[in-house]
C-alpha cells in the first residue's frame, strides 16, 4: 500500500499574464500521507489555490516532480488528467459551483455520469443523507442555503469514492456556524472513512482543527505544523 498520496519535489509554477511573469509556487517540497487531514494556510496570493490545482490535476507544474497516488500527472494529456480527477479526486470550491439547472440529487449524480458509473444508483442519495440533506434531494441550487449548497458540493465530490478530497476556501461564503459544521463533516469523513482531506483556508481557528497545518507565504513553504490531539 502506498504511504504517500502526494509527493511534491521542487514543485514550481509560473504564470504569464499580460507580459507579467508570476511565480506562484517557488520550488516547494511537500509530502502528504494517506489518511491525513491537512489545511493549507496563508494570505491571498500565497500559492494555496495553485498548489491545490496542481495536486488536483487541474493544472500542470512548470517544473519539479509531482507524484499523485503513484502516478506522475506532469506528463499526462488532458484526457488522462480528467480520468484521474473523476476517479481519484473530489473537489469542493469556495463558490460551490453547483450546476444551476440540476437539483441536489442530479448534481451529485453528475460525476457518476462522467465516470460512466451508472450502476451505483443509491450512492448519491446515501451521500446526501450523509451530509444531512435527505430532505432536500429535489431542491434546486437557488432553493438552498449557503451551508446546504456546500454540503451538496461535498456530496458531489464524494460521488465516485475518491481517495483525496480537495477543498479551496470552502468556508469563504459561509457563516461561522455553517463553516464549523462543514469542518466537522470533514473531520468525520477523515476519521470514519480514512479519507485524505486537503483544505486551503484563511480561517485560523478552523485551520487549526486539522491534524496538520502547512503555511505558505509568497509561493514558499513557511511552516509545517503537525498538531498533536
Amino acid at each position, binding site marked *: 500500500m502506498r504511504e504517500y498520496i502526494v509527493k511534491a519535489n521542487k514543485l514550481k509554477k509560473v504564470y504569464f499574464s499580460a507580459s507579467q511573469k508570476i511565480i506562484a509556487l517557488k520550488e516547494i517540497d511537500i509530502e502528504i500521507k494517506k489518511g491525513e487531514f491537512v489545511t493549507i494556510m496563508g494570505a491571498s496570493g500565497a500559492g494555496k489555490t495553485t498548489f491545490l*490545482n496542481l495536486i488536483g490535476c*487541474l*493544472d500542470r507544474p512548470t517544473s519539479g516532480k509531482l507524484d499523485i497516488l503513484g502516478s506522475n500527472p506532469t506528463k499526462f494529456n*488532458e*484526457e488522462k488528467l*480528467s*480520468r484521474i*480527477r*473523476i*476517479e481519484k*479526486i473530489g*473537489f469542493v*470550491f*469556495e*463558490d460551490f*459551483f453547483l*450546476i*444551476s*439547472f*440540476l437539483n441536489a440529487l*442530479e448534481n451529485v*449524480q*453528475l*460525476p457518476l*455520469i*462522467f*465516470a460512466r458509473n*451508472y450502476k451505483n444508483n443509491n450512492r448519491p442519495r446515501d451521500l446526501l443523507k450523509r451530509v444531512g440533506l435527505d430532505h432536500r434531494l429535489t431542491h434546486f441550487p437557488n432553493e438552498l442555503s449557503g451551508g446546504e449548497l456546500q454540503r451538496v458540493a461535498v456530496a*458531489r*465530490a464524494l460521488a*465516485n469514492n475518491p481517495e483525496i478530497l480537495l477543498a479551496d476556501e470552502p468556508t469563504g461564503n459561509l457563516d461561522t456556524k455553517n463553516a464549523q459544521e462543514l469542518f466537522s463533516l470533514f473531520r468525520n469523513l477523515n476519521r470514519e472513512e480514512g479519507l485524505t482531506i486537503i483544505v486551503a483556508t484563511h480561517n485560523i481557528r478552523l485551520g487549526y482543527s486539522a491534524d496538520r497545518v502547512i503555511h505558505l507565504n509568497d509561493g514558499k513553504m513557511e511552516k509545517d505544523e503537525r498538531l498533536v490531539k
Partner: protein
Amino acid sequence: MKFFILAYKNLKRRKSRSFLTIGGVAVAVAVLVALLGFNAGYQEALTSDVDKMGYQVIVTAKGCPYEAATMILSGEAGLRFMDEDIYNQITSDPDIDKITPLLAQLAYDPEKQGGKGGFINYLGIEKSYIELKPNVKFKSGGWFSAENANEAILGYEAAESEQKSVGDKISIPDKDITLIIVGIFERTATQEDGAVFLPLKTTQRVFDIEGKLTGIGIKLKQIEKISEFEERLYPIASIQVISMSQVKGTILNLVNSAKILIMSVAFIAIFVAIIGVINTILMSVFERTQEIGIMKAIGASRSDIFKLIWMETLIICTLGGIFGSVIAIFGGNLTELLVRKVMPYAPGGRLLLITPDLLVYSFLGVIIIGIISGLYPAFKAASMRPIEVIRSGE
C-alpha cells in the same frame, strides 16, 4: 440520469430559444420534404396521366404548336383542324393496334362555377375511344344510341359539378341544341374527368365543322416501331406526329426549370437553419463557460463535454426533423393547392408523393446537418480549460 437527459435538461432551460431553433430546422425539413415529395409525385402523376390516355401517339394538324400537345393533354382543343380523310388513310397502317378520331371543342359558359364563368371542354369521340382507354368505365348509363344522336356522356367531375345524372338534359352555350345525358364515366383521375363527351358526328354538326378532326389517338402494336411509323406518315404534309414520351419530356422540362428555382430556395432555408443551430448552441456554450469549466473540474473529459454539446445539437435537429416531416405531411395539401395554381400543367391525382423512403432520407440528412453544425460549438466547449474558468469565477 445519462448524457441524453443532461443535454435535454439544458435545452429545456432555454425553452423559447430551443423551440425557435427547432422551428427553423422544422421549416427547412418541411420545405425539403415537400419539394422532393412534389418532385416524385409530379413525375408519377404525369406518367400515370399520360399512360392512362391510352395513346402512345397523337396525330395533329401541322402547325399546331408543340405546346398544343400540352393543351391536348389538359383536355383543351388543338388549335387546328385536319381532314377526316387522314384518319381513313392511316387507319389501315399495319403497325397500328388501336386508333380513334378526336374532335375537341371549347365553349365559354358564363353560368359555370356558380356564375363566375368558365370553359367547358367538349370532346367528340367514337366507340373506339373506350377500347383505347382501358380505365374508362361507365359509372352509370351507357354508350350513345346512334352516331349522330343528340346525346352526351359526362366525365365524373363534370357530372358532379353540374349535379347531373343519366336522363337529365344539358345545352351547349350559344348553340340551339339540347342533349340528353345517356352515361356518366367513372373517375379516371385525368383531366378528362371534367369533359363532356359527344358523338363525333354530333360534335362536327353542332360546331359546324363537318369532316374535321383535331387529333387522332393511336396505340401501336409495338411501341419500338414508332420511328418507322412516323416515317410512313411523313409524306402527309398537313399532319404531325407527337409521341407521348415527347410530351412528357416537354412538360418535365418546364417543371425542371421551376424545380431548380424552388430547390435553391430550399437550400437557402436549410442554410439558414444550420446557421441558426450553430448560433443557438454556440451562444449557450459561451453562456455556460463557467458551468462547462465546473464539469471539467469535477472530472468531465474533453470528449464528455464534446458529446454533451453535440447531443444538444442532435436533439434540436431530430426534433426539428420530426416536426418538419409532420408539417410536410399535413401541410402537403396546401402545398399541392399552391403548386396547382403556379404550375404550367398539373396532372390529375396527387402531386405530392411523400414516401417513407423520402422521410427517412430527409431525416438522415437533417441528422447529418446536426452532426456538422454541432462540431464547432462542441469543439469550442471541449477546448475550455477548467482552471481558467474557475479562476474567472472567483
